[in-house]
């Protein structure tokens, strides 16, 4: 069986390599994409959309449908993780640490709940909390990561970046909080419901901005008809792109946190990495 699998892999690889030979050379001016499509984008994009970053112009404006359904796919990924992994059963055993003495309590009775506060702290069964240095460094680092994520989203029109990247960076700052402290810290700060609503709201912002264009007299995703609604009609398409990028960023942030929390705690949302 292994030999058969190996032969199939080798055949597929050879086929792919054979196919690659037909590709145009890197930067070939005669390739089909460079002959018809790229010229239009390069010549017209700045003039039509007032966005210096052509990649953002193509992704969020010319091919807005593509990006909209990509956002929907990300949302579906979060939804699938939630539906497959989420486990609402209460955990029977709990561990607590008496903070002043460091004594660890193992409570087997699920009805006996110790109030967590100054005296007692939650503890995971197979996860030793990280030490002071990691906590302090991450506490200082996380706000900077989040500000950078916001910058990446807001500056997507001018420099590399955009909603997806900014959202992922913001989501990883939340994951860093869960790793450096514990999962409960993250879950306590951002409720599961809030994350779910955010993920949906992000997609709805995108679809909403696209749909508003229709009653204004344009096509779906035709930002230029929104000019009466914004303060700067000259840059209306750039502002429309910024709007959808913010929607994408919100959705991706929430979905990253949902996926991480559900995977790492087996859907219990109690203890994890």
């Amino acid at each position, binding site marked *: 069986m292994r030999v058969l699998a190996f032969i199939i892999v080798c055949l597929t690889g050879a086929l792919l390599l054979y196919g690659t030979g037909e590709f145009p050379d*890197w930067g070939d001016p005669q390739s089909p994409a460079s002959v018809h499509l790229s010229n239009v984008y390069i010549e017209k994009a700045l003039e039509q959309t007032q966005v210096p*970053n052509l*990649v*953002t112009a193509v992704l969020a404006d010319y091919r807005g449908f593509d990006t909209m359904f990509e956002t929907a796919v990300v949302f579906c990924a979060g939804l699938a993780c939630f539906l497959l992994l989420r486990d609402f059963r209460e955990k029977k055993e709990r561990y607590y640490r008496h903070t002043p003495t460091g004594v660890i309590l193992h409570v087997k009775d699920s009805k006996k709940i110790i109030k967590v506060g100054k005296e007692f702290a939650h503890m995971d069964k197979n996860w030793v909390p990280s030490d002071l240095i990691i906590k302090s460094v991450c506490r200082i680092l996380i706000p900077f990561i989040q500000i950078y994520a916001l910058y990446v989203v807001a500056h997507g029109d001018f420099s*590399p*970046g*955009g909603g*997806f*990247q900014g959202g*992922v*960076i913001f*989501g*990883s700052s939340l*994951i860093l909080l869960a*790793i450096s402290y514990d999962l409960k810290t993250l879950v306590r700060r951002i409720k599961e419901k809030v994350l779910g609503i955010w993920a949906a709201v992000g997609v709805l912002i995108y679809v909403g901005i696209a749909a508003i264009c229709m009653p204004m007299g344009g096509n779906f995703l035709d930002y230029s008809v929104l000019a009466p609604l914004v303060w700067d009609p000259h840059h209306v398409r750039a502002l429309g792109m910024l709007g959808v990028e913010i929607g994408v960023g919100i959705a991706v942030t929430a979905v*990253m946190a949902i*996926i*991480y929390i559900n*995977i*790492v705690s*087996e859907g219990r949302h109690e203890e*994890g*990495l």
Partner: protein
Amino acid sequence: MHWPIDLIVLTFVIFCAIAAISVKDLLGTAILFGAYSFMMCLLWAVMGAVDVAFTEASVGAGVSTVFFVAAVFRTSRRTKD
């Protein structure tokens, strides 16, 4: 004069890919995938696709490595085959 960097990084990509499928320790595989993604990110940057490089760095090398580690944490660390 960017082609030597190109080839060196491409060699690293192939090494990382072969190592990732041959290592028995799944945590090591997750880290190797992170290294693979980072090398791919360098490759995109060398080719001038900065947006793709940025995405690869944040999604491939960043978050997906964390997801792999989280999945390994909740399953087993050794492969069966």
